């Protein structure tokens, strides 16, 4: 990727760009707004929380605050995979109701790259069969002939939490 060329392009066209951090999940590449990424860390053991759905792996301690960890494969009903050397936890800042700031971690197969994408190039997603519910998809971006699914993490992680509440209310 020619970062400098893109930067020049950015200055010339004065388009709005968005940087995406992409990761792999079951062979597909997904992207999240890089400004929401707090840190990326290797998988480490977690403390289980009782009576929560399986995709909530538990909580970890990140510099004194208790952060829940969500397994993305399990969240989207994908096939389970043993955690290996490339498995990482991406720690994200989630905005809730436009104000409350939460920190959550998601377990993904591997991180891929950082892309600078013009916002206009993120196309609305057609309703077709990616593994992820289109509800959580902001759009699709094409970079170097690859398709990247841009996720709406606020919506996704809040919905993840809602599911917990439902389950407990049963």
């Amino acid at each position, binding site marked *: 990727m020619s970062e400098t060329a893109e930067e020049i392009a950015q200055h010339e066209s004065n388009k709005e760009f968005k940087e995406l951090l992409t990761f792999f999940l079951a062979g597909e590449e997904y992207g999240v707004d890089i400004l929401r990424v707090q840190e990326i860390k290797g998988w480490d*053991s*977690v*403390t*289980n*929380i*009782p*009576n*929560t759905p399986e995709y909530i792996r*538990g*909580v*970890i*301690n990140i510099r*004194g*605050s*208790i*952060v*829940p960890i969500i397994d993305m494969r399990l969240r989207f009903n994908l096939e389970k995979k043993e955690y290996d050397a490339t498995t990482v936890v991406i720690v994200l800042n989630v905005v809730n109701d436009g104000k409350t700031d*939460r*920190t*959550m971690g998601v377990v993904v197969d591997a991180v891929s790259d950082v892309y600078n994408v013009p916002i206009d190039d993120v196309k609305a997603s057609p309703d077709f069969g990616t593994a992820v519910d289109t509800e959580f998809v902001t759009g699709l971006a094409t970079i170097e002939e690859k398709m990247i699914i841009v996720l709406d993490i606020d919506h996704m992680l809040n919905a993840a*939490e809602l599911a*917990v*509440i439902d389950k*407990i209310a049963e």
Partner: protein
Amino acid sequence: MSIDLEQFHETFFEESFEGLDIMESGLLELEQGDVDLENINTIFRSAHSIKGGSGTFGFTAVAEFTHDMETLLDQMRNGERQVTEAVVETLLGSVDVLRNMLNAIRDGSDIDVSSVAEVTVAIKAILGEESAGTGSTETQVAAIPAKGWQVNFKPYIDIMKTGNDTVRLLRELNSLAESAEVTINNDSLPLLSELDPEDCHQSWSINLIGNDISEDDIREVFAWVDDECELIIESLAQDDSSVGSEHSDNDCRETEPNKRKTDKRSNKPVESSSIRVNISKVDELINMVGELVITQSMLSRFGEGEEFNASTIEKLKDGLAQLEGHTRELQESVMRIRMMPISFAFQRFPRLVHDLSTTFDKKIELVMTGESTELDKTVLEKIGDPLVHLVRNSLDHGIESPQVRIESGKSETGVIELSAFHQGGNIVIQIKDDGAGLNKDRIITKAKEKGLVTKEEHLSDDQIYDLIFRPGFSTADVVSDVSGRGVGMDVVRRNIRELGGAVEVKSTAGEGSVFTIRLPLTLAILDGQLVGIGNETYILPVISIIESLQVKTENINAVAGNSEVYRLRDEYIPIVRLYQIFGIKPISTELESGLLVVVEAEGKKIAIYVDDLLGQQQVVIKSLETNFKKIEGLSGATILGDGTVALIIDIAGLIELYQKDMANVVPIKGGGLAA
């Protein structure tokens, strides 16, 4: 003046609210017929500083309103006016209005002009007769700018001694006007030989010429010396006399027309974010930090290449022991800073009881004890509302009307006792009334009606009383505006639980009821017992643990196939297998190979089966809700010495979870109860 006054607003509000509280309690004392000059003086002083402060910050509406109150109080102070119930009642009303005004200003919302006008009229009516002169002219708020003003300023002789400088006042006045003519009156000036340089003998007459000077602006200049001078302000423009404007168009300009009415609610819970700390507590902290620094420098020697040998290790151990001691002491001192006497929560009750007893036409005496018991500030702020609810409840439902009381051979006046004290590691707050007590039959009937209990269920007295804390339960025959909407007691219990506390009720028919609230001393730190279940570590609050024991097989009894009880001396205690409820894989399911921890919450006991007891330590409570959500049966999490997270069990919640599990055994949950 270029000083940014905004920065002092918070302090002003804080002090004003304190002042209002003082006024309120003073007035309530007055009403009890205790006309003490010192007391009236105290009330007067509070009103005076609120007036002065609000004048300084430009909250004219408040300053004017307070001015009338002050005039009235001044007359009382000078013995010119009798302290009657009507006067006190009006003053109490004006305290409320003032509080609302200050709240409105602080939140940037609109002042309720109508209530202000109403009370102002009431005060004026009282003032009316004798002092019509001073009262009305002074408060004729001239919102209409005049062409100019004549200001007659005649300071009292000792104005300089109070730290005020007339020159500054005049200079300030001059800055308002386009031009000013000043005439000085030196008539009363004594001979030079008799002159005390600190006395002020002059008076001034000033003609201020300018188009947009309001009377408020001029009054503001004199806000601080109001009581130290005679001040007459007259409009120079004779033809448009401002008599017609009266006080009804109350000038509320300081509200800065803020049209955010919609989210008024959301910015409501402005709990004061600062606390007043006794200086000795701060000194203690500084001392502790000093000690800590010394210990630290002592320990750092070991890092600076000193050879390690047997003796240095000994010293290192000593140092570490010292460090531990200091850290603990520091922690305790910091905790103490957050502690405030419970009187902060109690002080609103005399007024509440006073008002409500009038509403309900009941005679009630409020007795408060243990007001100096200290409680964590956060707990204190959150316990206020539940307490109010309970006191209202006692007043409304507990205490009978005077006739009924006399008929049942009690004294006419009912007594509500509010007390706070330490017990074990808890703070206990009791609300006790000598009313009719809870009506068991009515509670049961109601509970059956609402489907809270089945017809056949046999309940103990305590269980019956406990029903009133269930959601959707209210026995009030008439829904009054105070209580009886059935949203009360369950919310009370929930709020108290959120604080890690518990509430229970005991009652004797005809003699009254006692509500007991137990609260933890602090929310931030907990003495925890670490227990092992399978590979997991959980924490039980030490406070709730009664004892831990090894299981004797002969004491286990199975009840109805699916639940077990353990006979401990004369009691049967249900056994809760935590691994089942939390769906964990245990080391063993045989009761004999593990331990039972008997815990109690809200008067209920359970024996929790755990694999192992791991040790006790103080843990800092971290909320799960910050980044996640509340989990039933857990009150939070903490970080252990090795950096891992351990979950803290909420005993009351766990008992509920267990009861729920028992109630619906049919849909077997993850771990399975059929085991």
